[in-house]
């Protein structure tokens, strides 16, 4: 893997991002309703508490009287310098709103990923090592249930059990008042799915590696089983798992949307849902664009890591 490979991947990301920007903008453009009305605090037409001149003035101020391509050029130009416009509803820059929400979502996702890895990898290894035995079946049942549990519903169940019935965790907590405790239930809810996927991939990959000659040799040399598995097999079995971990990133952002909403965490998901309710188009566009950027970057990192971990794929 050389610098060329990285450069080529980075260059490929540019047209993709441009395409995403166009798609997101066109969606906003096609959106029914007049953003100027939203900006004036009106949700329905036929409201007469403003006059036509005022509406026209607002349109002009927001640049809505410009043709579509000009608005796109202006928006994209701003986006390139980190300026995603100003919220139609709140007195903030879109980038400020996103900047405030981003750390919450990133903290949630990072914690989730760590928990999912901590559960999934041991579960997968145990499952593979004890293939066909009780522990394997148990681990596989846990995995299939984990993959199939609706994240947002699990969030509600956890809330019911551990906030209402047994008030261990706060119901509508915040970082300021409750510290990292507020993250425990949301993280558990989102981590179930990736943990199960990681366990399944770890099991499959480990089974494959355990069948190889060099592992038999290691056993034949009389090395302790634990050491063979953890040092010799794991090293080669881990790279497909790394891919699964990385590719889960996008799913996690998606799952985080509903979970943030349920647990009232002020992250990107909550911001997006609130903006949709408020018809705050520029914020929706901005959040979608930023999430896409993070997603593309994550996939890029996965690819690079994958080739770095498994030099056989280097070319």
């Amino acid at each position: 893997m050389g610098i060329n490979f990285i450069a080529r991947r980075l260059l490929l990301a540019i047209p993709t991002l441009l395409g995403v920007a166009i798609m997101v903008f066109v969606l906003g453009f096609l959106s029914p309703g007049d953003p100027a009305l939203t900006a004036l605090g009106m949700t329905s037409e036929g409201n007469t508490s403003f006059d036509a001149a005022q509406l026209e003035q607002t349109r002009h101020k927001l640049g809505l009287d410009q043709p579509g391509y000009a608005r796109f050029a202006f928006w994209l130009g701003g986006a390139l310098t980190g300026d995603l416009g100003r919220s139609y509803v709140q007195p903030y820059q879109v980038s400020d709103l996103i900047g405030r929400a981003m750390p919450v979502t990133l903290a949630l996702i990072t914690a989730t990923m760590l928990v999912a890895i901590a559960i999934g990898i041991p579960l997968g290894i145990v499952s593979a090592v004890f293939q066909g035995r009780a522990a394997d079946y148990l681990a596989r049942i846990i995995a299939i249930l984990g993959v199939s549990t609706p994240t947002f519903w699990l969030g509600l169940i956890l809330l019911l059990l551990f906030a209402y019935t047994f008030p261990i965790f706060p119901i509508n907590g915040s970082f300021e008042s409750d510290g990292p405790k507020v993250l425990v239930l949301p993280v558990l809810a989102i981590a179930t799915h990736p943990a199960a996927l990681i366990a399944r991939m770890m099991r499959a990959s480990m089974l494959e590696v355990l069948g190889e000659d060099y592992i038999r040799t290691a056993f034949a040399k009389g090395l302790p089983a634990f050491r063979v598995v953890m040092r010799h097999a794991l090293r080669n079995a881990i790279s497909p798992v790394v891919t699964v971990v990385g590719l889960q990133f996008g799913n996690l952002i998606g799952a985080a949307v509903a979970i943030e909403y349920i647990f009232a965490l002020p992250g990107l998901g909550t911001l997006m849902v609130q903006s949709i309710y408020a018809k705050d188009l520029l914020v929706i566009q901005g959040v979608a664009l930023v999430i896409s950027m993070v997603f593309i970057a994550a996939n890029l990192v996965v690819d690079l890591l994958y080739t770095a971990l498994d030099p056989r794929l280097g070319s």
Partner: protein
Amino acid sequence: MTYPATQPDAGRTGTAALAGQSRRYVGLRKFLDDPLNAISVGLVVLLLLLAILAPIISPYPPDELMPADQWQAPSLKHWMGTDEHGRDVLSRVLHGGRVSLFVGIVTVALAMAAGVAAGAVAGYRGGLVDEIIMRLMDILMSIPGVVLALAIVGMLGPSLGNLITALAVYRIAQFARVTRGSVLSVMARDYISACRAVGMGPVRTMLLHVLPNCIGPIIVLATVLLGNVILTEATLSFLGMGIQPPQASWGVMIAGGNEYLMFAPWISVAPGALLMVTMVAFNLLGDGLRDHFDPRSRSVL
């Protein structure tokens, strides 16, 4: 140029068709021999039956308001209890399943039609066409599915048509990628060169010889995505961006029960449990089909 349909050729086609049929039958038997596959097929059939028969087997109309029966806990009269308007949760869960499966099947069918066509053209033509199609698919896949669907429905409005479009768009790209990969591997086979050599046109080659040999991965993907689409629909409906109340859908019901979680948890728990059973069914079936079509991956799960 066409090759003449001589007598021996016609005879061979007949035998081949017969052999194909029995092979398929044996394949199905072998597939159902695995108890997990039998369970998943049974579950899927059961869910489909419940959805189709919902109007007949529901004990109450899903929208009937019975204020006197408000907040009933599960009992013999109301197996899954009643909600804040005294509506029977079981009846609403059954009707909600109808909506969810309908949206899921229509979405996957549309995404499959568009995605397979795009992937087949990209794989068959190669070159610039391939490059353009796949870059477009990259764009569709560069926003996480739920976020993309949310953006589409959020900005265009939560009508049924917009909902299905929103759910389908991301999956088109998934179908296109899988189809293209399979098409490329099939195209390298000798029998495709043979088709070309006898002068068979691209459309005919594609429909009769390439796509039928790519069907395995496409079916596996469709199965897994069906569960996935139903889950995403429920998530969107839960957030108020999918099916709109008072129409029953699992997501709508879970959202409706959210407020009363503390003293009437059954309103949210029942539809969620059905949703989970649906997910288990389609995930198990997808795993089983994957093993069936690609025995090398048997160790997964």
